């Protein structure tokens, strides 16, 4: 045993550097990240919040089939992307639109999935972002594999693997963390504990002292962080990435946050949680708190904020316009990408569809 087990346990309280009222608080030995990093995070938060609203509007207008909200979790998602370098990989879930966009993927391509045009709308190899995972926790062993491949080639890639509190109950979570630890793969497992898996509260999900306490069972250090505090996230996730890059192996980080809206537009959150609970979290909003802090240290003024808002508005508008264009996806793609080369049977099946389309055409 190379490590004293105690070091693998998380701190008793989640790391917090800026409190809900926007004041800096001491957290033993953890430094406040540089102001420019905080400002960059804030810009991302503004953009993410706006984009989330836009996506919700697009659902109402019938342009998106469904949308899992990131409102309330923007700090987790934006910072998860921000701490990565270009060569690193991000493994997001269906909820992590804000993380993927913060990583540089065009929101239009991110929303392809929810628009129903195709499954993954972006090329995973360009920004090193895996397709959004829907089957819970299944992406985590992939993240370990990507990290291990890089390590075998001597590259310094780090992989940021996202999952929800509910996802930690799946066997794949367990197997992924164990593989990562045994192979010392440079993966940061980042759990956004938003208190619910659809309707199921955390207490029905686990009886553990915290999700971060799961790390020690794999020999992986666990950390807890305030998931609505971008500063603390920058500090903790940044350190985890640096540690992984330095070859010290994987880490498990649990962020305490809250999904402010329903699971998706199709969900009715009033069936399982109280308005009072939601309001409690309203007061911990990640945007407000960072804005107050940045203004307090004179790093943000009205003009800068207006600039951020405007850029966010532009991105949202561009997304809206693009999603309102009705470009029908091509059915040929269904048959073309099953294998690198379609089988004779797939070619024959495509012909059935093409023939039907031809006849429709003629029928018109």
């Amino acid at each position, binding site marked *: 045993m190379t490590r004293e087990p105690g070091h693998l346990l998380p701190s008793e309280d989640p790391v917090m550097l800026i409190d809900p009222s926007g004041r800096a608080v001491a957290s033993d030995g953890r430094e406040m990240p540089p102001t420019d990093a905080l400002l960059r995070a804030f810009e991302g938060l503004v953009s993410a919040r706006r984009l989330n609203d836009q996506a919700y509007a697009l659902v109402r207008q019938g342009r998106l*089939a*469904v949308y899992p909200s990131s409102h309330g979790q923007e700090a987790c998602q934006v910072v998860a992307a921000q701490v990565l370098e270009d060569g690193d990989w991000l493994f997001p879930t269906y909820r992590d639109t804000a993380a993927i966009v913060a990583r540089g993927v065009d929101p239009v391509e991110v929303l392809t*999935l*929810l*628009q*129903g*045009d*195709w*499954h993954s709308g972006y090329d995973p190899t360009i920004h090193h972002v895996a397709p959004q995972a*829907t*089957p*819970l926790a299944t992406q985590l062993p992939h993240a370990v594999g990507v990290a291990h491949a890089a390590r075998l080639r001597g590259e310094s890639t780090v992989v940021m693997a996202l999952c929800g509190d*509910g*996802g930690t*109950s*799946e*066997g*794949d979570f367990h197997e992924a963390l164990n593989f990562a630890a045994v192979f010392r793969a440079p993966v940061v497992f980042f759990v956004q504990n938003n208190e619910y*898996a*659809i*309707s*199921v509260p955390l207490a*029905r*999900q*686990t009886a553990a002292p915290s999700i971060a306490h799961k790390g020690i069972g794999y020999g992986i250090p666990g950390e807890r962080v305030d998931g609505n505090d971008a500063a603390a996230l920058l500090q903790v996730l940044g350190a985890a990435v640096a540690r992984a890059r330095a070859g010290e192996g994987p880490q498990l980080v649990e962020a305490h946050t809250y999904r402010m809206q329903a699971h998706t537009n*199709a*969900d*009715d959150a009033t*069936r*399982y949680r109280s308005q009072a609970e939601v309001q409690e979290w309203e007061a911990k909003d990640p945007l407000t708190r960072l804005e107050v802090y940045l203004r307090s240290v004179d790093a943000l003024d009205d003009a800068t904020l207006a600039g951020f808002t405007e850029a966010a508005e532009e991105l949202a508008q561009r997304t809206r316009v693009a999603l309102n264009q009705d470009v*029908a*996806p091509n*059915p040929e*793609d*269904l*048959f073309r990408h*099953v294998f690198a080369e379609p*089988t004779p*049977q*797939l070619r024959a*099946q495509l012909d*059935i*569809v093409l023939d*039907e389309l031809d006849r429709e055409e003629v029928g018109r």
Partner: protein
Amino acid sequence: MTAATVEHQKLTMAQAINRALRDAMAEDPTVLMFGEDVGPLGGVFRITDGLTQEFGEDRCFDTPLAEAGIMGFAVGLAMNGMRPVVEMQFDAFAYPAFEQVVSHVAKMRNRTRGRLGLPIVIRIPYAGGIGGVEHHCDSSEAYYVHTPGLQVLAPSTPSDAYSLLREAIASPDPVVFLEPKKLYWATDEVALGRGQEPGIGRAVVRREGTDATLIAYGPSVPIALDAAEAAAREGRSLQVVDVRSLVPFDDETVFAAVRSTGRAVVVAESTGFASVASEIAARVSESCFHSLAAPVRRVTGFDIPFPPPKLEHFQLPSVDRILDTVDDLQWEDS
């Protein structure tokens, strides 16, 4: 219960399933319903709506989010006197439980030489037609029917959903109960109580016809009926058989139907290769060989992953595709 006393209600399929669960739970205190979000929320399709409220937290409850765990937990509960009904939230999310289903649920009676049967019902909202994103629209019945030891049912009407679920819960053997998502909102006059409809292992002729037989189940039955309706307008008389019970399979009814028309088209939404449709085509081809005027044809999903919402209509059997195929059945007069 005589026919006169049977209570009927107009219900959607979702309501019919809910009612079957309620009636079964009220009758038998060992029936338990659990899974993901089936408690206070009532399930993402509201199939278990009100059950926790009515029967309490011990009878209808949420579990941690882990399908293999849910299935294995059900095995243990069934080993110890309970009749668990589990919901897999969507078809593709039952795959993590595959080992438990194949190596334990399906085999326990056999492994123990009949000493330990597992009366488990695995409810799976399945198949497409609702514009669902990837992993939410799989037709996974072939995996289950191929596994000896599982009964596999696929209702196509609210009445069947009610009655077959009641039989499934009463069955001493594990049942995979496939609920066609796109029919959840179809309505029907449902006869309540047990034994009002043909039971497990029985197919039914849904529409009489003399020229060719359409064989369908679950989500494809309404399409087959629509096709028969359209064909009738064109002067062709199509018979429609609803298989209902994929395992055990009702050879008798299916073969008699095909022999009566001499032509058959199997209609199923699932990808076609090595599927239920293959099995039906193979056994009909073998057993009705001398009655067949044309080869048995299949209209199934293509051998591709289920398409994204905007393309799914290409994958689903359609009236036109069925009629095209029927047209191909080597009619002498055409």
